[in-house]
Each structure stands twice: as structure tokens, then as C-alpha cells.
């Protein structure tokens, strides 16, 4: 139930509902989209970016907050650990226990390598667990990997590395099959046909889902498989620095126990960074849909040893973050709500855009509605627009919401909002790190040998924007790929003498560039304790 200050606007939305369901808003032209993005998308706010003064991407601009942690100091000094006495010694070290890390570990294990996972929280406390909407794959007769390629390439503003994208789309059906054979339950019709829907920017219905617990279903199954195989999972343990050998190849990591602060050394023949995204950096003050440990650690770890970043200046703001009630501010409202027919409606009950534009366009359009156009609804925490969820029941029949998006119904239901009868308030939320470490088709970084990257920490697969459902896909395709290749490479590798020399080199660069900073990174966790000044 909404308080009375919302009632007037709510009434307008209800009255317009029938007409709005029938109304098919035009899609924007390429030019309209460009102008909209330039004026309203956070990625285009020049004063929010800063030029990197050191490191492999020196001279390029990244978000201010990211610049701060990329140029920051290490959490350790080389003398803090004994590199000659590693606590762990494996073929493949996987850093990060999300979907990419788990897929990589399973494949490395299958390939016969000894593999371990070190992860910040528990395995599965990760963005993967939170994905709701689904995973793309062109497996229907009216679809093809080529059409999938075009959708993703255009959606990413024609900036994806083509060889990576091509691998993504061509391996997609096999990825779904692999998951299905591990026991992941996809939504299917009684004859076995996958139930697939549109996502923003798709030209075919290729979004596979497991209700709106798609990521959870994938993640818990992968976790179960990791445990069945007896792959060691060192939880509550973060990588705080990579280790190279004297020839400059990745050869392990310094790990930190998150509870005791104890440091340990893991030596490995190959290392896979699978640390995920950066929502908890709260770029430009945005709320986020991400899990607690999403602090761009992998980018910092890689950058400090010389791995290049690609498109680190592009972030994805999901158009529909929950804007009300305050307890769930920033939490994701899955795109599937729009796939199932709910439209975006402004204060006056007017549909102001096609609901399935790409995410960046949709986010910019909502920001325009709430700023210059003054058509937002005031929530107490800023302005927002309506997402008219009751439309779903009218279009799909009663019960559709409970069957297809139970998590959404539960999330709002906890705060007394029945999304089957009442619309919800939304505003963009920081959602996905489009950019990341630059890799080649094998999943190895382009500048540091034996250092692999998979998942949201990679840049370049999607270009400058990612379509819904292509990230769950990339963590599986490129997670498996990294695991296979890292395992194969480990067989040919002998590790030399371990060193942490890169720390002092980076320190020297920082000093030479005249940067003064007390910041240490990776950040590991955000600090949400109440500051004394707020008391």
C-alpha cells in the first residue's frame, strides 16, 4: 500500500492502464538514442572521470573512484609474507567463488589439474547468485548465433572484440546444455522446449530462465558440483596481491583471511581472476544491485602487475532499480518484468518510452524523465518513475507474476506492496562493470602470461554496454574456457622464483608521477558502519 502522497499519481497510472497496455510506443532512432545518452547517461558526465597517471592504461580516463583505487598503495609490504613457504601449492588458482570461478574450477578439475578456489565471502556469495532474468543462447529454429552476434555487437555500441563475442555466441547453446546436464532446471514447456523471452535489445526471444532465480539456480548447482568434486574452497579469504615469478609470469597470490587478517601465500602455475564486478564502489553516488563484495578487486590486482584494462570507463546502470521503499533502495527489479509486459510510466500515467530499449538508453530516458522533464514521482529519496506491474497479469493472465517472477513478488511483498495489483517505483541503479581486464580468446590477459580472467572482471566481450542475459552466458562460456586453458598451460609451466617486486615498482611509478595517496587497495568490502559524524 502506498501512502497518500502517491495516490494522485497512482490514480493516473491506473486510469491509463488499459490504454497503455494496448499502446505500442515507437523505438528510438539511432540518432535519438545517441543524443539521449550524451545528455543523460552517467558515463557521459565528464567531471566524474579522471585520467590515470600510471600503469598500463596511463592517459586514459576512468571513473574517479576507480582511478583512486587503481593508483592506490598495496595492502602489504613484500616482507610481510614468506614467498618460499607457500601454504597452498596448486596448478590452477581461482580467485573468486562466483559463477565464473566455479565454472573454471570444474573444467580445470576435469582436465586433471589440481585447482583451488579462494573467495572473499562464501562460495556463491556473489553477483551470480543474484541474477534473476536469465541467460541468452540462440537455440531456437528462428534464431542463430549470427543474429545473436549482431544483437550483442550493436547493443555494445559496436565496440566488442569480435573474436570474443563470436566465441560467446557460438558456445552459448553448448553452455546451456552443459548446465542442464549438471542438473540446472530451466523453464521448459511440457515437450521440453525452452521457455524463452525477449530482453532489452534482443531481436529474438532467446532468454532462458529458471523463474526469476536464474542465477541462483545456476550458482547453487555449480557450487554443489565444486563440492562434489572435492575442489578445495578457501572461503573468507581474499587475494590482496598477485605474485609473479622472476620471468614475469603470474605464479600465485597473497591471500588474506577476512576475519583474522592473517596472510598466506598460494603458489600456482596459472592464476584465474574471477572476482566479478564493482557495484559497491558506488560510482557517482549511485545505489547498487550488486553483492557486498563487488569492489573491483580483480581490476586492481591485475593492473598492478601490468595487465591492461579495456573499457573500464563504461558502467551499466540498470534502468530499474527499486526506488521505494527505502529498505530495498537500489535492489534490482529484473528486466524480465518488462519482458513480461510491464511498461514504464511517468507521474502523469504516460508511457514515455518503449520498455525494451537497451539498458543504457532506458536508464538515460528515466533520468531525463526525472530531471529536465520533471515528470518523476517524489519518493523521499529522490525521483522515480512507475513500472506498471499489474499489466503483466492482464496480459499473461492471473498467476503469471507468481509463476514467473516470484522473487520480485516476495521482495515487494515484504514491504506491503502487492505487485500484482500495484505498480512499483524505479530509478537506475549501478549494476554491471562493462569493462575490465583485456583478454585474448584463450582467456589469458594480453600482457601478463599465465594470468587468466573470466566473468565480470573481463572487458571487451560485450563492448561498451552489455545486454541482459549475456553476462550469465559469458561467465559460463569464458569461465569454462579459462579453466580449460589454464589447466592445459599449467602442464607446460614450471614456476620460477616467486617475487612481489611489482609492488615497489608501482610505488616508484606513483611517486614519480607525483601522486600522493593514503588509499590502500583492493578495497575488499565497503564500509557501511555509521560514521561518527552522523551521530
Amino acid at each position, binding site marked *: 500500500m502506498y501512502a497518500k502522497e502517491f495516490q494522485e499519481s497512482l490514480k493516473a497510472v491506473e486510469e491509463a492502464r488499459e490504454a497503455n497496455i494496448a499502446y505500442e510506443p515507437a523505438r528510438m532512432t539511432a540518432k535519438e538514442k545517441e543524443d539521449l545518452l550524451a545528455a543523460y547517461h552517467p558515463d557521459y558526465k565528464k567531471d566524474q572521470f579522471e585520467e590515470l597517471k600510471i600503469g598500463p592504461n596511463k592517459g586514459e580516463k576512468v571513473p574517479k573512484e576507480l582511478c583512486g583505487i587503481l593508483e592506490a598503495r598495496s595492502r602489504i609490504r613484500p616482507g610481510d609474507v614468506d614467498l618460499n613457504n607457500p601454504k597452498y601449492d596448486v596448478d590452477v588458482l581461482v580467485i573468486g567463488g562466483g559463477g565464473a570461478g566455479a565454472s573454471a574450477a570444474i573444467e580445470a578439475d576435469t582436465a586433471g589439474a589440481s585447482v583451488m578456489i579462494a573467495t572473499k565471502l562464501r562460495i*556463491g556469495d556473489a553477483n551470480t547468485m543474484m541474477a534473476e532474468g536469465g541467460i541468452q543462447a540462440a537455440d531456437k529454429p528462428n534464431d542463430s548465433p549470427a543474429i545473436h552476434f549482431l544483437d550483442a*555487437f550493436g547493443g555494445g555500441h559496436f565496440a566488442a572484440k569480435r573474436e570474443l563475442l*563470436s566465441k560467446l555466441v557460438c558456445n552459448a*547453446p553448448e553452455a546451456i546444455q552443459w548446465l542442464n546436464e549438471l*542438473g540446472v532446471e530451466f523453464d521448459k514447456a511440457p515437450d521440453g522446449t525452452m521457455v524463452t523471452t525477449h530482453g532489452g535489445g534482443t531481436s529474438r526471444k532467446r532468454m532462458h530462465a529458471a523463474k526469476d532465480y536464474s542465477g541462483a539456480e545456476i550458482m547453487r548447482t555449480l557450487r554443489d558440483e565444486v563440492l562434489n568434486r572435492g575442489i578445495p574452497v578457501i572461503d573468507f579469504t581474499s587475494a590482496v596481491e598477485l605474485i609473479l615469478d622472476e620471468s614475469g609470469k603470474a605464479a600465485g597470490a597473497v591471500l588474506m583471511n577476512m576475519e583474522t587478517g592473517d596472510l598466506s601465500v598460494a603458489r600456482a602455475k596459472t592464476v584465474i581472476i574471477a572476482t566479478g564486478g564493482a557495484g559497491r564502489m558506488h560510482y557517482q553516488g549511485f545505489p547498487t544491485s550488486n553483492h557486498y563484495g563487488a569492489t573491483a578487486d580483480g581490476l586492481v590486482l591485475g593492473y598492478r602487475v601490468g595487465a591492461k584494462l579495456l573499457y573500464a570507463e563504461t558502467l551499466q546502470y540498470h534502468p530499474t532499480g527499486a526506488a521505494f521503499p527505502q529498505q530495498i533502495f537500489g535492489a534490482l527489479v529484473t528486466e524480465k518484468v518488462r519482458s513480461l509486459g510491464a511498461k514504464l510510466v511517468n507521474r502523469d500515467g504516460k508511457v514515455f518510452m518503449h520498455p525494451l530499449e537497451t539498458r543504457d538508453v532506458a536508464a538515460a530516458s528515466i533520468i531525463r524523465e526525472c530531471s529536465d522533464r520533471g515528470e518523476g514521482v517524489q519518493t523521499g529519496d529522490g525521483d522515480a518513475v512507475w513500472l506498471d506491474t499489474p499489466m503483466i497479469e492482464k496480459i499473461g493472465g492471473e498467476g503469471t507474476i507468481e509463476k514467473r517472477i516470484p522473487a520480485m513478488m*516476495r521482495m515487494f511483498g515484504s514491504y506491503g506492496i502487492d505487485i500484482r495489483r500495484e505498480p512499483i517505483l524505479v530509478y537506475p541503479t549501478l549494476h554491471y562493470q562493462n569493462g575490465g581486464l583485456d583478454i585474448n580468446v584463450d582467456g589469458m590477459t594480453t600482457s601478463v602470461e599465465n594470468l587468466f580472467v573470466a566473468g565480470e572482471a573481463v572487458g571487451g566481450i560485450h563492448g561498451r554496454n552489455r545486454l541482459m542475459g549475456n553476462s550469465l552466458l559469458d561467465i559460463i562460456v569464458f569461465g569454462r574456457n579459462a579453466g580449460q586453458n589454464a589447466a592445459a598451460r599449467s602442464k607446460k609451466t614450471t614456476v620460477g622464483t616467486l617475487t612481489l617486486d611489482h609492488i615497489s615498482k608501482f610505488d616508484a611509478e606513483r611517486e614519480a608521477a607525483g601522486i600522493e595517496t593514503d588509499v590502500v587497495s583492493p578495497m575488499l568490502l565497503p564500509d557501511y*558502519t555509521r560514521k561518527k559524524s552522523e551521530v
Partner: protein
Amino acid sequence: MENMVNVYLFGKQYRVPENLTIMRAMEYAGYKLVRGCGCRNGFCGACATIYRIKGDKTLRTCLACQTKVENDMYVATLPFFPLVKEVYDINEISPSQRVMMQLYPEIYACVGCNACTKACTQSLNVMQYIAYAQRGEFDKCAEESFDCVMCGCCSSRCPAGISHPQVAMLARRLNGKYLAPKSEHLENRVREIKDGTFTELIEALMGKPIEELKELYNTREIEK
């Protein structure tokens, strides 16, 4: 000024704004969380919590990230619960009742007290899905347990020592792999890709100049 309420975190009293979740209230009180906090949004089950309201004997369970504080709430988090997870090879087992008897025989010791269902933070009918598992009806067990976040609250209340979330996990994998109908179109597509059916098409796209790809993209047909 916000309305404040009393909460007792592990027995110690704090005053916090009434509109906070338990998780935010802990942070407001000054806790920097490491354990007991994962997704912060009701999906990972890291924040299982037990509470009781002063004057009420009922012990309640919830997810700290999804539950608002109440006045005079006594809170104890349960950031880890020793669930039993049996290991198995998914390719070697079959979806028969026997597999449950072998891996999780304790489910047959269920006394029917329904404490698990009452404790479920997702309002699932836990005892019912265990009953399905006992009977080897894995499809039903999978459906009934689908929204489980594996927080372990159910198991913490079970006199028979059942690890309900792990039983359900096994049922879902069996159902997903063996019982749910196969997707023919998926198998066909995987085969076509292996056979190189699309190789030429993709390679053609890979080689096209950007302008041409833009044109193709902007004029592509969109399925209704």
C-alpha cells in the same frame, strides 16, 4: 527526527531508526560485517537470523537483509550452520528413491513436527518437500523447494537432524538432469554448430566494416 526503536543485538541494547532492516541496524550500531552478509538482497542465505520479540515466547527466523527491525527485538545471527552435504557423482546416480535412502536416510526419521516449515525464511512448505523426497517424487520436491536460499534456518530447528536444503538441492539436480523433458531444439543447435552450419555466416559478420554492421543492426527484424 526518525522514529527510533530498541533492538538487542546479541543481547546488547541499541537504539536504531525503525525503518532499517536488521542488517542495516547492525551497521548503524557500528558492526562492520564480514560474515552473515552476502548478496544483501535475499538471494544468498548468508544472513540467517533468529529473533524473539520481548514478551513473546515464539522464536522466529528471518533473513536479516529482508526484515525490518521491530521494537524490543532480540537478535542473534546464524552466519554459519553445519548442514550435512553428502557428495555424489551426478553422472553415476539415478533418480530413484534409493538414492535418498543412501545419501540422506535421516529424512525418513522426520517426526512431522513442521518446525522446518515454520522456520522457512522463504515461506516454503519445507516438510512437504521432504515428504516428496521420501517418496522419490523429485519433480515435486524440486518445484516445492525451488525458491530455497539454503540459509539453514529449517535445519537449525529440526529434531531429526535433517539438512533440508541439501536434500532439496539433490532433488533439483536429479530433476533438472534426468526427469525434466529434453530440449530437442537445443541438442539440434549444438550439433549444427559443431557441424559448422553457422561458421560462414559468423565469419562474414566478423569481416564486415563497422558501417555495414551498423546498417544491418539498425534494420534488423525484431521478433514480436
